[in-house]
């Protein structure tokens, strides 16, 4: 194929916008595209999704929908044929939930912590560093939910700066999941979730959990916000 023909074909592909997740064309910087979660309200709040090459975070208390939100992003990435990694020192990920969200489990690398080990967090940070350094994954999730605050404070202060430097030239997005604010890159997103309670339907033995509601605040000061509704899958 001649160079001119290639250029013409690339122009045509660009003009037609054939696919969002198509491989980058010549001269196209993948870092400019964002990783959408597929949840309309959240994507609107994030300006299209989590930024690539940045450390972002999603934090909130129990049942605030932080896991559901990040699982949706990982599911979208794996479902489109790219790779995602889930570093899970607490061994809390439920593969059935990830599959329900539409993820391709074969494309999700899951690193699980040991049961009741005090070295889970340092090991997870080390594993996340390896995964980020490979540059193979579009999104890497480091799940720090439930990790004791004292253990988090024992991590070297340079950890998050090092991660930011590792990925800033790559199309990888690192998403930290935590109970409270952990870290955020200079161009990264910070989503704070506040639960609005569960929604139920029916009564008696046929009663069902319909979903969870939450309020999502973007940015460190939470100026912009949106409502989030997650559906239960039973």
């Amino acid at each position: 194929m001649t160079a001119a023909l290639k250029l013409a074909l690339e122009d045509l592909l660009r003009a037609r916008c054939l696919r969002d997740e198509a491989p980058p064309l010549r001269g196209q910087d993948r870092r400019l595209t964002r990783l959408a979660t597929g949840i309309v309200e959240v994507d609107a709040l994030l300006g299209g999704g989590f930024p690539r090459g940045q450390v972002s975070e999603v934090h909130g208390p129990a049942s605030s929908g932080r896991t559901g939100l990040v699982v949706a992003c990982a599911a979208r990435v794996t479902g489109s044929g790219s790779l995602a990694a889930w570093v899970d020192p607490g061994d809390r990920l439920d593969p059935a939930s990830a599959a329900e969200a539409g993820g391709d489990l074969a494309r999700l690398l899951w690193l699980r912590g040991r049961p009741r080990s005090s070295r889970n967090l340092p090991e997870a940070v080390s594993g996340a560093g390896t995964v980020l350094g490979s540059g193979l994954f579009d999104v890497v999730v480091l799940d720090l939910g439930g990790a004791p605050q004292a253990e988090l404070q024992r991590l070297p202060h340079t950890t998050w700066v090092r991660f930011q430097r590792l990925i800033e030239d790559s199309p990888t997005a690192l998403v930290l999941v935590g109970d409270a604010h952990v870290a955020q890159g200079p161009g990264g997103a910070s989503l704070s979730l506040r639960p609005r309670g569960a929604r139920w339907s029916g009564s008696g033995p046929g009663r069902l959990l319909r979903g969870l509601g939450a309020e999502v605040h973007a940015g460190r000061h939470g100026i912009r916000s949106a409502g989030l509704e997650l559906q239960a899958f039973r």
Partner: protein
Amino acid sequence: MFGGLHSPVRLPSEGALLVLAREFTPRVEAFGATPVLLDLNGLGRAWPTPRALGEALLERARARCLEPQVALAWTRVAALVLARGRPGLTVVPPGEEAAALGPLPLGLLDLSTERQDLFRRWGLRTLGDLAALPAKGLAERFGPEGPRLRQMARGEDDVPLVPTPPPQSFECTLELDWPVEGLEPLSFLLARVLEPLCGGLSGRGRLAAALEMELRLVDGGVHRRALKPAAPSSQVRTWRTLLLLDLEAHPPGEAIQAITVRAEPTPARSVQFSLLDPAQPSPERLAETLARLHEWTSAGRGGAASLLDTHRPGAFVMETFAPGPVSSARSRSVASVSAPVGGGQGRGRVSMRAFRPPLPARVSLRAGAPAFVSAAGVRGTVVDRAGPWRASGDWWDVAWSREEWDVALDRGVYRIYRDRLREEWFVDGELD
């Protein structure tokens, strides 16, 4: 000129004649262990006469304790047949092949029993008898095979010599002047061993599917390691990293005196990339990353989860992380819609944060429904609930039977269940 080597007696080793022949020329055609045909063209400077060359062949064979029959002729078939039919050294001048072959028995042409019987009934005993028959008559009776046999009996070539390729050995050894200790100096030495090995593999269009490394130690012991990564590779950097990572986990006990690396070759892969699907990860980089995560993957804590075909909640197995090719239909269906695959109208799904193992809990009941839950880190009054959902299975194996509830506490929504076989309560996970 061609040379034929044939041993009527059993050879000390299968490739003895081939090795002998390769000492004279690389263009050698082997027909099993024996006979062996040599292309001797261009050796006139070293051996001025064919007889001198033949004597040299015999002399070199005797040095190897071999007693082959040697024939030198100007056609391929004459050299082969004469080597099989005449003892010692035979040298045939050009143009006299038919005369030299004439007295030899017909059996030297490797005819089938049926054809030998037929020729015997015709009164043919020697190659000369066959060569004297008219080609047209043989073609009428045997088809193209007839004239071909006649041609061979006259010592005329019908096919050229096809050299047998030398055995492919992908092995490299480095003897060290001084023993080395530690991985840092070994890193440079490994590159020196791997560069020619990987170069040889690439030159033949091969990749190494597995690598065996033998480290000879100063105490006389041998430290052996075998690596089989997820994807074959012929990249020095990849193999060096994999070997070093393996040696980090399994270091040799003593200083190293010699390094031998042996590759198991496999044909190079050919991949047709798609213009529309996401770029797939380089198998070499993936293998390297997984090797770096060896501590996780070896303990079964790293990989890809695969759901089991069962109703048992939370049943999955960990498999090796080896993402296959993208299913185009699946990826396009995902990319073409703005909503996530599982959640309609752009909504996400509730995900469970599992407790492994499930947390033993104490549950107070009111009117048969959970009213208060207490477990490690989970405690509170139940403000809302849904259930019970009963499920059981695997009665033929390790039976399970549970009664599940989704309960909303003051802080969070949890899935709890009562193990109906043990009559105990557990918190399965947090719904998040």
